């Protein structure tokens, strides 16, 4: 078999988890990261990032809705996927994750967005007609109460939801890390650090995404970017990046130092089959370069330059974190559990689990976000002021 090297167990010839399973942690990571950025303002009172609060929430929602799609497309029997909710096997991280997802979607994200937008929903309801009017009516749950008292209650409850939401977001993506980290059969995955590494790379990717979306939307709406906001986001991105890098370096150092039975196999794999995706894309282009760019902006005074550099850093970050997911998921399947051989992943384009589908799945959340932004504009006052 071409691309195969050495000895693999006969059943290992076919890779089990495809690019769709790379997409899934990438998407849920963006959700967790975007939410944590939003919670910076709400819970930690970082006023500077307030302009991105609503956008971050909507971004998280758009991506969270799309997140189950790659999983459904990957399953052998997607029509049976509801079984995970009806008869979850309590020892299975994958099964319990279904409830973490549901909890986070319904009890955290949807509730928080609802509380934040309620006043706007009610006013839009009163102002619109036809189908949109019905939509807003449903969203308002038929309540028109936007009195000062009600809004105060909303604010308090919203704050509580965000406080609960932070550990929920940690759980959402940490759990995905645990799904990999708890597989003792696979030494590339099996480490207690996996949930934490996943979580911090999620934060990095989510913050980078919101930073990019904010700039993109400002450009689209033809308004000026709030540079204090942008600089603050970039600073938090840098901090998260430094923690993420430290964690990954710690994992690497530990592996190299202990050099257990799997080390030679994994080391060889990283230097050959994973060289481009891990060393070049994830580490250099996706981590070291963005860190350098972000750090160096401290000494750059021209806002325009900082904006462009932030955008470049943000895009490199997203590519780098995608590469990280790729290296974990695909990398974990390129070597044989016999530690005596390797296989390859043949990514096709036009199949159910191919590149074409993946591209569509990555574009879908942006389409959804576009719809959400139209239904629930994050900056209605500004937009109206600019239109006038």
């Amino acid at each position, binding site marked *: 078999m071409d691309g195969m090297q050495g000895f693999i167990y006969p059943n290992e010839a076919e890779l089990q988890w495809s690019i769709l399973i790379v997409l899934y942690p990438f998407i849920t990571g963006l959700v967790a990261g975007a939410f944590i950025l939003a919670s910076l303002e709400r819970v930690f009172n970082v006023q500077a990032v307030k302009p991105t609060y609503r956008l971050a929430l909507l971004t998280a929602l758009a991506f969270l809705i799309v997140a189950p799609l790659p999983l459904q497309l990957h399953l052998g029997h997607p029509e049976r996927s*509801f079984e995970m*909710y*009806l*008869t979850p*096997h*309590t*020892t299975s991280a994958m099964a319990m994750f279904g409830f973490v997802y549901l909890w986070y979607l*319904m*009890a955290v994200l949807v*509730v928080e967005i*609802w509380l934040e937008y*309620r006043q706007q929903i009610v006013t839009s309801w009163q102002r619109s007609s036809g189908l949109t009017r019905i939509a807003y009516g449903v969203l308002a*749950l*038929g*309540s028109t*109460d936007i*009195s000062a*008292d*009600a809004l*105060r*209650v909303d604010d308090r*409850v919203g704050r509580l939801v965000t406080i609960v939401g932070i550990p929920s977001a940690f759980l959402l993506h940490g759990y995905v890390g645990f799904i990999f980290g708890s597989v003792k059969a696979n030494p590339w995955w099996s480490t207690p650090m996996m949930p934490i590494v996943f979580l911090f790379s999620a934060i990095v990717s989510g913050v980078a995404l919101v930073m990019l979306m904010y700039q993109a939307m400002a450009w689209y709406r033809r308004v000026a970017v709030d540079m204090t906001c942008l600089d603050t986001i970039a600073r938090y991105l840098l901090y998260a990046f430094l923690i993420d890098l430290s964690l990954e370096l710690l994992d690497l150092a530990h592996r190299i130092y202990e050099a257990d039975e799997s080390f030679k196999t994994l080391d060889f794999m990283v230097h050959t089959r994973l060289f481009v995706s891990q060393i070049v894309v994830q580490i250099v282009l996706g981590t070291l370069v963005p860190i350098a760019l972000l750090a160096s902006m401290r000494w750059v005074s021209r806002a325009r330059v900082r904006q462009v550099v932030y955008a470049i850093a943000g895009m490199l970050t997203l590519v780098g974190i995608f590469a990280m997911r790729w290296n974990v998921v695909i990398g974990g399947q390129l070597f044989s559990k016999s530690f005596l051989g390797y296989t390859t992943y043949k990514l096709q384009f036009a199949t159910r689990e191919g590149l074409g589908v993946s591209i569509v799945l990555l574009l879908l959340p942006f389409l959804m976000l576009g719809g959400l932004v139209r239904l629930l504009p994050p900056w209605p006052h500004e937009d109206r002021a600019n239109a006038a």
Partner: protein
Amino acid sequence: MARFRSYEHLLRLAAVFAAGVALFLGARWLLVPSDYGRLGAYRASALAQNQLRPIAYAGQVACVECHTDVADLRRSNAHARISCESCHGPLARHAADPAEAVERPDPRATCAVCHLPSPAKPPWFKTVAFTEHADPGPCTTCHQAHAPKL
């Protein structure tokens, strides 16, 4: 404490959630298989379902029931402990309906599968260099397959 009016909308939200939970519990009651969990975290009927497979290999005992002459011939010779179906293939259908024809195994290839020499084979196992030993005639020219020791 805020007046009821101020948080009435939250109660509407709670009602929506309660409806969702009720829907979920209803779906559970309807859709979870009745035998799930009886023996463990699985459908108990899966045990029975795994038993439902037609049998392909009849087993040595089944062959001996009819072919007593072959059984006698094999006894105390080198191939005595080898199952008939090892060389003859799956024969459950033949055992169920003896009229069903059975293909004879190839009198050279079948022997070669086991008896071709290889350093990987354990030292106590008898192998033969086929190219040197009575090539290319079938092994049955000299050896009785059921009592091969000459």
